[in-house]
């Protein structure tokens, strides 16, 4: 699949926002977080998700009609995401306001509502991809697990960066959380690379055209100049480029941020890890082999 930058930016920003909120609310529940840390942090979490939402509009051919996209929530995970994302942003924004005005009971109730919406949002985002059964790289519980784990890791690093500025007493706990979640997410995603590399595509050129002969070769795809099919479903990059992006994730996704976290530089660690997660999400698309590509193996 061709990596779509609007979606890469959207899912990584929203994942960081969701993870940041979960880390903040955990600190809130533990009773150790200062009011201004929770207020500013949750406002930032809402802003990260809002920026992600803005990015997602660039994926649409007709953004002015986007209001229609909440209609099919009974069947479409995309439609469900369109409903849950603004709801999450609104509840986290309200939670932030409740912290500002010290409405503790309200904050607690809103926080739990936001946790539910946060998990629901991770499920919706992941299921958009995981529900497509013939995209075997995506059709796996690992899609949800990775979105969840990497979002939590990125958010915990953001929480550490905030703690360093706003409440240094919380920095050791946040750093430990970011290191632990970062390691878990990194290992799960690395494991997914191995899983995907070992997949056997169910569809073959034989099943695509219904020929039983083991030797089938495309001679022409019926066009010389390419089409939506050749643009949307191929990443068009060399194997060397894909390998380089994979190395970028394997370095920037956890090892380098871990060193920076350990060195007490959580803000830089967040930026570096975010770059690694952009690489990760790019690979998420580039690694997915769509069966329609079997019909577009040769131009002429």
């Amino acid at each position, binding site marked *: *699949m061709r990596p779509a930058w609007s979606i890469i930016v959207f899912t990584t920003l929203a994942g960081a926002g969701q993870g940041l909120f979960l880390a903040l609310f955990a600190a809130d529940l533990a009773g150790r977080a200062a009011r201004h840390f929770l207020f500013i942090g949750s406002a930032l979490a809402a802003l990260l998700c809002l920026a992600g939402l803005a990015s997602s509009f660039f*994926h*649409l*051919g*007709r*953004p002015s*009609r*986007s209001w*229609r*996209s*909440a*209609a*099919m929530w009974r*069947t*479409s*995970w*995309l*439609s469900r995401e*369109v409903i849950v994302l603004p709801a999450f942003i609104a509840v986290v924004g309200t939670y932030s306001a409740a912290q500002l005005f010290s409405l503790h009971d309200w904050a607690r109730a809103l926080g739990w509502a936001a946790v539910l919406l946060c998990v629901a949002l991770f499920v919706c985002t992941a299921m*958009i991809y995981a*529900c*497509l*059964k*013939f*995209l075997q790289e995506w059709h796996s519980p690992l899609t949800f697990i990775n979105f969840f784990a990497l979002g939590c890791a990125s958010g915990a690093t953001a929480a550490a960066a905030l703690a360093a500025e706003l409440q240094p007493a919380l920095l050791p706990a946040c750093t430990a959380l970011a290191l632990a979640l970062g390691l878990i997410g990194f290992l799960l995603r690395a494991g997914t690379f191995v899983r995907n590399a070992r997949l056997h595509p*169910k*569809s073959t*050129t034989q*099943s*695509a*055209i*219904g*020929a039983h*002969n083991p*030797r*089938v*070769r*495309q*001679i*022409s*795809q*019926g*066009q*010389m*100049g*390419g*089409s*939506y*099919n050749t643009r*949307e*479903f191929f990443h068009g990059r060399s194997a060397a480029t894909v390998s380089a992006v994979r190395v970028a994730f394997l370095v920037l996704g956890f090892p380098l941020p871990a060193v920076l976290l350990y060195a007490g530089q959580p803000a830089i660690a967040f930026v570096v890890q975010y770059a690694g997660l952009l690489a990760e999400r790019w690979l998420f698309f580039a690694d997915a082999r*769509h*069966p*329609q*590509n079997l*019909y*577009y193996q040769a131009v002429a």
Partner: protein
Amino acid sequence: MKKQLALVIDLDVCVGCHACVTSCKEWNDQGAAGPLTDQRPYGKDPTGTFFNRVQTFEVGKYPQTQTVHFPKSCLHCEEPPCVPVCPTGASYKRKDDGIVLVDYDKCIGCGYCAWACPYGARELDESQKVMKKCTLCVDRIYDEKLPERDRKPACVLACPTNARLFGDIYDPTSEAAVAIKERGGYELMPEWQTRPAQKYLPRK
């Protein structure tokens, strides 16, 4: 009785002339489905939106090879994976005749339905920014102003070798259903249980 309109493609007689491609484009570039835009049609790298393509495959090992011309368009699946994923309801399957259509006025151009189609039957129109696909010429097959013999998809009428049959595959007496039964009409990528209504007749 339910109805499911579909094409049946006879790979035994398709000669790969692309008459179905050009007649499809000609009909659907105007009227209910149109426009069906091209980009840089006279430029260096022309491209455009089509409902129908004819591809060519070589089957077997030289010199025992067969050249198979393979027309490819929307298969109007009975379990269309492209329909439930659409967030706006623009992508839908008609209950009365089983045609899968896109409502161009509701489509937001997110491209999710194209991802959900294993066959690559959908193309986003780069000018209109909405998803396009074969309509089985829904705007001509019911048109009572046309003589009855012309109430068929444009591709079917254009085919010089009668490689494209059209009809209700649930009606056992239709030309399409008879051909599927007698000639062993098969589905593309049966492994995904999309149950394509459009069947292909194998080489003899």
